[in-house]
Every structure is written in structure tokens, then in C-alpha cells.
């Protein structure tokens, strides 16, 4: 075991301790407090709290609203992740090809990811406005009438998916594009000499070489999309008729609007547990292979 001797070692240790302490303070403490709150009944954060044990869990788990929100969350997460990964890989492959103006196009591709979520949602709200929205007017011009985009449960969910995919696909593209630069060109050249088609080179070289990046990207996107609150809240607030109400929105509503802090904390805790189980299952099927340290 290495001993801490130099100033650099001490600085690193200090940075590590500061990072862990901040994490504990800002993440672990609130999480533990949410778990504690889930065992109490309270109408607000300042009201008297009554110990109810696991009664909140029984109540929430027997409430069809919870399962509906869980299903909506899964649907939203799975569809957006699938679309983001497929499109992200596709765009990365295209951007890896040499063509004039490539650096500029690469820069533009990242733009949606750089926009603040509020800006993105306001843009889409305007585009889809029932009276003046550009898409609404176009739809009318081609004879589709004025679509009530947010009044139909299916179209409301589709809009959320499209907005999410539009915003976060660049993240996947950038990750894959970076990873693709690490694949030795000699592998492709050898495969080409052996007569491998473009598809075979992609399937047998690119995908295996990008597997660790794919695993991590899908994992990160899963966590972010399952917990995604801002886009849903800003665009639909879970409506219409709860058609887009997933677990984060349900937890927020219960805790901050419906005078049920314990219920909200329970939904949040259950959401956390569900996500943990899903990640464990994911790692079981797609383990991250650690590189062995060279001696």
C-alpha cells in the first residue's frame, strides 16, 4: 500500500474527502431523510409528523395510481433510451466519415444538448401551440386540421418522447464518436482486406469495441430518463388525464401539492428501490468488464 508522503498526495486526499463529504451531505442525507419521512404521516414539512411505520408503503402499493405512474415511467424511459442509442450510434457513424465541413457539423450536432431544458420546452410549446404554433399551422395547411397535440394522451406522450430524444441524443452521439476514435484503424483495414462488408465491420468490430461505452451510456441514460422530471413537468405536468404522470411527477404532486409528504416520500423511495433493482438486473446481463492491471 502506498503511503501519503507528498503535497500532491495530501491535496488529492483532501479533494477526495471534500468530494465524499459533499456527496454525503447533499445526497445521502436528503435520501435518508426521504426514507425517514416515508415512515411518517405529515401534511406539510412543518406539520407534526406521526409515525405510521410501513402503512404508507401499503397504501401506495395498493394504489392503482402508483402502478399507472410506474408503467408510464417505464414506457417513457425505454422508448427514449432505445431511440437515443439507435440514433446516437447512427449519427456517430455518419460524423465519423470524412466530409467537407465535418468539424462545423459536429459542433452543430451538440447544440440541442447545450440548450437549457426550459428553453427547449418553451420552443416546443410554441411550435405546438393550438392557435399559433408553426406545426399546428402546417398541419392545417396539409389538411390535418388543427391537431390538439397535448389533449390526446398518445400524442402528449409522443411529444415528450420526441422532445427528450431531440435533446439528449447528442450526448449519446458525442460519447460514441469519442469512443470510436479509440478503435484501431488497423482492425478495419484488416477486415476490409479479408473482404468484410461495411455491415460486418460495424457488427464485428465497432459494436464489440464500443460495448463498454454502450453499457455505461445505456445505464446513465436509464437513470436520467427514469428520473426525468423537468421535461415532463414543463410540457404536460403529467396530463392529460394522468397519461404522462410518471413516478417523479406523482411524488412531487403528493409531497408538495396534495398535503401528503409521507406518501410523496414513499413514492420517491419506491422509485429509488425500483431503479436499483433494474440496474442490478442490467449489470447481471451486461456486466462491465474491468481491464486487468498490467504487472
Amino acid at each position: 500500500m502506498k503511503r501519503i508522503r507528498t503535497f500532491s498526495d495530501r491535496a488529492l486526499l483532501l479533494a477526495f474527502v471534500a468530494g465524499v463529504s459533499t456527496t454525503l451531505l447533499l445526497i445521502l442525507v436528503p435520501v435518508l431523510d426521504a426514507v425517514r419521512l416515508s415512515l411518517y404521516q405529515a401534511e406539510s414539512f412543518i406539520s407534526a409528523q406521526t409515525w405510521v411505520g410501513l402503512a404508507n408503503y401499503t397504501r401506495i402499493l395498493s394504489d392503482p395510481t402508483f402502478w399507472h405512474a410506474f408503467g408510464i415511467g417505464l414506457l417513457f424511459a425505454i422508448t427514449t433510451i432505445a431511440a437515443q442509442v439507435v440514433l446516437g450510434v447512427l449519427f456517430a457513424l455518419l460524423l465519423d466519415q470524412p466530409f467537407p465541413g465535418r468539424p462545423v457539423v459536429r459542433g452543430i450536432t451538440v447544440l440541442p444538448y447545450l440548450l437549457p431544458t426550459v428553453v427547449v420546452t418553451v420552443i416546443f410549446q410554441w411550435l405546438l401551440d393550438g392557435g399559433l404554433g408553426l406545426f399546428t399551422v402546417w398541419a392545417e395547411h396539409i389538411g390535418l386540421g388543427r391537431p390538439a397535440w397535448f389533449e390526446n394522451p398518445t400524442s402528449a406522450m409522443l411529444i415528450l418522447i420526441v422532445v427528450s430524444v431531440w435533446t439528449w441524443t447528442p450526448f449519446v452521439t458525442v460519447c460514441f464518436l469519442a469512443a470510436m476514435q479509440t478503435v484501431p484503424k488497423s482492425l478495419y483495414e484488416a477486415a476490409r482486406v479479408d473482404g468484410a462488408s461495411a455491415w460486418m465491420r460495424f457488427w464485428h468490430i465497432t459494436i464489440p469495441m464500443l460495448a463498454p461505452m454502450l453499457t455505461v451510456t445505456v445505464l446513465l441514460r436509464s437513470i436520467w430518463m427514469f428520473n426525468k422530471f423537468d421535461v415532463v413537468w414543463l410540457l404536460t405536468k403529467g396530463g392529460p388525464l394522468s397519461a404522462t404522470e410518471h413516478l417523479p411527477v406523482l411524488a412531487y404532486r403528493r409531497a408538495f401539492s396534495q398535503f401528503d409528504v409521507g406518501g410523496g416520500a414513499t413514492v420517491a423511495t419506491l422509485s429509488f428501490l425500483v431503479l436499483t433493482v433494474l440496474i442490478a438486473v442490467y449489470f447481471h446481463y451486461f456486466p462491465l468488464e474491468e481491464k486487468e492491471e498490467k504487472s
Partner: protein
Amino acid sequence: MAEQDSSKALIPPSATTDTFSRRRVITTAATGAALMALGAPAVHAQTKTIRFLNAEPGRESVRALRVAAAEYEKQTGVKVVVDTVPPDDAYSKLQASLSSGTPYDIGTLAFAGHMLILAEAGKLVPMTKLIEKSKWGPRILFPVKGEHYWYPYDYNFCWMYYRKDLYQQKGLKVPTTFEQMAENCKALTEGGKFGVGHPLGANSATQWMSIGYLWADGLKMLDDNFKLLIDNADMKPRMIRYLDFMKKLQPSMPPGMTQALFGTVLAQYSGGQIAHAPYAGRLMEVLEDRAPDLAGKTGFFMYPDSAGKAQAVNHAADGWVLLNTPMRDEAYKFMEWFTERHYINFLHSAPLHFQPPRLDVYEDARWRAHPLIEKHAELVEFMRGILSSKDVIIRSIDTEGPRIDLRPGKMFETFAISEAIQNRLLKDMPAAEAVDIMAKKYRAVL
């Protein structure tokens, strides 16, 4: 090496020698910090500070409060710090300030249920004596166990505005029944213009702007024991009539009304897109600002019922609360001074929108002298008539029941009535079924 030497030459000799040693830096920093720590309480002790959480973010309202704060500090030496948040964030911000141990001394609330929670938790100071100095309009004071914990400044009634010029062109009359309202809206829907804009989403806007017809039709949600009434033999037909009426009104509304909020309706009416709009006095202020030609063409009426016998307005309320902090006595003194000297100035910051709940204000020459209040005397008399007429029904979901209670507040926050409207309009669900689903949701929170 040469570069190193030249850079060193730029630094004063004193900084490069051991006079600028690590020990010296630490000693100096520690001394400074200690002096600051010792000095800080002394400064606090010299200046008393009241923290005021304002939830009226309009520029004029913020200015009115700041002017009052500056004048109060000049007179008394007590500093009043005004923080402003959007109305929807006020309660969360108050809770956060209490939980973090740095509570505001005065807060603004737009929901009587929140005041009740804070009062019952012992976080508020009663203002009963202050309240008893004035006469108040109906359904605006919400005493808790005989004490008054909030000082109202705005009624927030919601009624209907309409385009008088379009009515004249089409030969229409001000509606007194659901049927007439639907027919008028239908007649005014043509060429990309719509008859009316009622929000239809699961939100506060819908429950403030779209359900006044229900109150006019005599709906009561709760009895004197807070028992739900909406699906009994008397009330259910009223709910069904209302939902069927909204279904009939739907083709006269612009698309996308499930997304509509308060500002949407203001924009739709001031932009000439809709011929009827539900709102309070703010709409006239917006017209004066953005579309002054429409201000003179705009009339107003209360929500009609189904039979032409009654009319109603939906209401909300805004008020200030005093928090139980070490500065409570100073905050009380400030409120006493402010409500005496600056109440009208504050009301003037939204002259037609902030409808005075204090009855003496209507007779006060200072209040009446505001140009917009003078110009819109007819509207002001209409607003005042809501308070004085016994024929006008004033109700809201969150204040249903015999006294202020959290149960109707919980009903409000379920947005079950908004969902009933959506079920009827978007899913074409039979009204009776939509009422049953709504009643089930309400019972779950009662």
C-alpha cells in the same frame, strides 16, 4: 531560468521574502476571520431587520413594497427586506425558510389552507386586533379557533368578459343561461376566432376560471359535516348539466386549452383570438397596456346558471401572514403601520386586479383617485356589487364547507373536477360516469 527570474522581478521584494510566509498568511487570515465573526453580531444588534416574503411579482407591486420598506426604515430605523417569488412558490419558500431555521417574519399566501396548516403548527402570530379595526367583505376572513391569522389584500374574483362590439355585430344578448352562453360562443366562432377560452388542464387555472357556472347552478360540494355531496340526488344532476354544457362549449374554444394557464387566456383575449374570457380585473389592466382599443369594447357579466335564475363568481384570496419569529413584535408593528399608510398604495400597484376586501377602501378618495379606477368606474361598481348583492353566489373549491379546513384544500389539489371535465370532453365519457370517478377521487382525500 531566465523566465523565472524575470517574473520574480515583477513581484515586490516584500512578497518574495519570508515576510510573506505561510505562517503569516494563516495568522492574518485567522485574525481577519475572528474580527469578522466578532463584528457581525454587533452589526446585527444595531439594525433590526424584518424579512418579508412577497408573492406578487408584478413590477409595480414590488416597487410599492420597496417604497414602503424604505419609508419605514427612515422613520423607525427598522430595515424591511423584501424577497419576491411567484405566487405558486410562496408556500414552499415559507416552509423551506421555517425548516432551515431562518423563517421570514411576514409571508404572502394565496391559499387559505396553507394558512391553516401554518397556524395549527404554531408558526403564525394572530392579527385579530388588526383585522378587527376594519370592516371586511364576505368569505374573505378565515378565522382559526376565533383568531385571525391573515390580512387579506385581494379577493381575486373571477367573472366573464365579452366583446361588446362583436355582440352588437351579431345581435347577441348577454347570456343568462348555459344554453345562451353556448349559442353566443358558437355564433362568435368563425374564421380562426373562437367564442371562449376556458382552461381545461389539471391545474389551478381551470379550477379558478372554468367552474363558476357550477356555483351559479347551486352546486355545493360539502355539507356542514364536510361530507361529500356532489354525487347525491340533488347535486349530481347539476354536475352532469355542467359537464354536458362544457362539452357543448368545447367546439367554440381554441385547441390546446388543456395547456392553457392564466397568461394564455389574457393573451388570447387581448390578441382578439377569443370573444369571451374568464378573469378578474387584471384582464382590463392588460387591455389598457397592450390593446387599449379593446378596453372600450369589453363588457362583463357573472357566470350564469342553467335556468337563468342565479349568477356567481369563483373566488380566491391573497393575504399576508405574520410568522412566529423573534421579530414578531416588530413585524406586527410594521403590519400595523403598513396597512394604515400603504395598503392603498399597494392596491394601486394592480388597481383593477387587487379588489379590496376591506370595505372602507371603496369609500376612500385616495383609492378612487387612481386613473384606471376612475376610468373603469362601471367595472369597479360591478366588482363592488359582487360584495353587496345578496343574489351573487361567491364560492371556491378550497373554501367549501362551514369553516376553513384542510379537507376542501385537499379536494382542490386532487384536480378531480378538471379530470371530470377532461373525461367528458377528451374521452367523450358520459357525464354521470365522470362524476362518479370524481366523487371517488374526492372521497379518497376526505
